[in-house]
């Protein structure tokens, strides 16, 4: 019976190996996950369950302004930016708490087989089933823009851009951001 060759089998084939250099995934310099790492290191060591009554980090006006596409000169280089338009045109829904957002992200992550770890308002999503080398990891952090308006910052960590782009839009990211008008670029 004829079967499609699997990727694993292709990688073993002689003709494929000729001149093949396995891709090396480097973290882009601007993806700095030190703060997320620090949080999770702490968590594992101390296992402190902090009350989520403290507010998420508040953003100041200039942090918001820095998010403009017009200030991202990386686009001049035609770099492969993970540019997802996350705008929900349903308007603002108020009275959504950061905890509800975290809950939504977790819910959305489940069917996609992402492993979710969170500590306060920082979360890490691991794709356990990543086919290509380098787990697709996504780090998110929730900031407070106004008492009832939150911004979710999403940073792609190590991983394959292609895989990230094929995460269906109506899953992980947009469902979890249903209540937000956020643009990430």
């Amino acid at each position, binding site marked *: 019976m004829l079967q499609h060759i699997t990727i694993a089998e292709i990688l073993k084939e002689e003709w494929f190996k000729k001149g093949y250099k396995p891709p090396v995934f480097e973290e882009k310099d*601007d993806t700095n996950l030190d703060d997320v790492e620090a949080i999770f290191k702490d968590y594992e060591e101390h296992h402190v369950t902090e009350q989520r009554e403290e507010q998420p980090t508040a953003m*100041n006006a200039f942090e*918001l302004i*820095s998010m*403009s596409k*017009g*200030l991202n000169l990386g686009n001049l280089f035609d770099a492969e930016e993970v540019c997802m338009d996350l705008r929900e045109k349903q308007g603002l829904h108020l009275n959504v708490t950061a905890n509800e957002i975290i809950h939504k992200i977790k819910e959305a992550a489940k069917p996609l087989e992402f492993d979710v770890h969170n500590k306060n308002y920082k979360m890490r999503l691991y794709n356990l089933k990543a086919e290509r080398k380098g787990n697709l990891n996504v780090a998110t952090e929730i900031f407070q*823009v106004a008492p009832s308006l939150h911004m979710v910052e999403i940073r792609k960590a190590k991983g394959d851009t292609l895989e990230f782009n094929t995460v269906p839009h109506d899953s992980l990211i947009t469902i979890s951001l249903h209540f937000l*008008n*956020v643009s990430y670029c």
Partner: protein
Amino acid sequence: MGCFHSKVTRQHPGYEDPVTLASQTAFSVSEVEALFELFKSISSSVVDDGLISKEEFQLALFKNRKKENIFANRIFDLFDAKKKGIIDFGDFVRALNVFHPNASQEDKIDFTFKLYDMDGTGFIERHEVKQMLIALLCESEMKLADETIEAILDKTFLEADINQDGKIDISEWQNFVSRNPSLLKIMTLPYLRDITTTFPSFVFNSEVDEVAT
């Protein structure tokens, strides 16, 4: 000055010698040559005149030449050092120099100050920040009540405007940025480190040899 050099000057009015530019900036000669490849593609995208117009800049940044954006305008104005309404190659390299990972923090902080001081008064005034904030919200299609915007501004100025005079001067800005280093994130382009691989330039190697002799 070989005939190769003058041929290039004829085609590109804004062209400057890569060796000179390299000596004035953090870029090596081959990096300047690679930047020239990038410059050529941007500056020829609407009108092939060797200069970057506002439209070509918008096209490169947004993939849409008609897209107006106050922040892109500010960046364009700062790149256009001679205030001619266009960016030539020298302007391009000297401006991008500030975005190099090795450029000084001081230069980056200065650039952002000028960026946000929209009317060039030497102060970042509250009404300017409000205007920029509204523009950002508009860009992201977010609507916030005026009171909420005012609250964000209040909080920002409380932190940044140390002498509480309603505006941020350069030393208050330096102080504010040192407490909020993420504000300089936009000022570093890691792509500039790999520029020679992203834009390999084969044509001008001979130029370097000519100048060396």
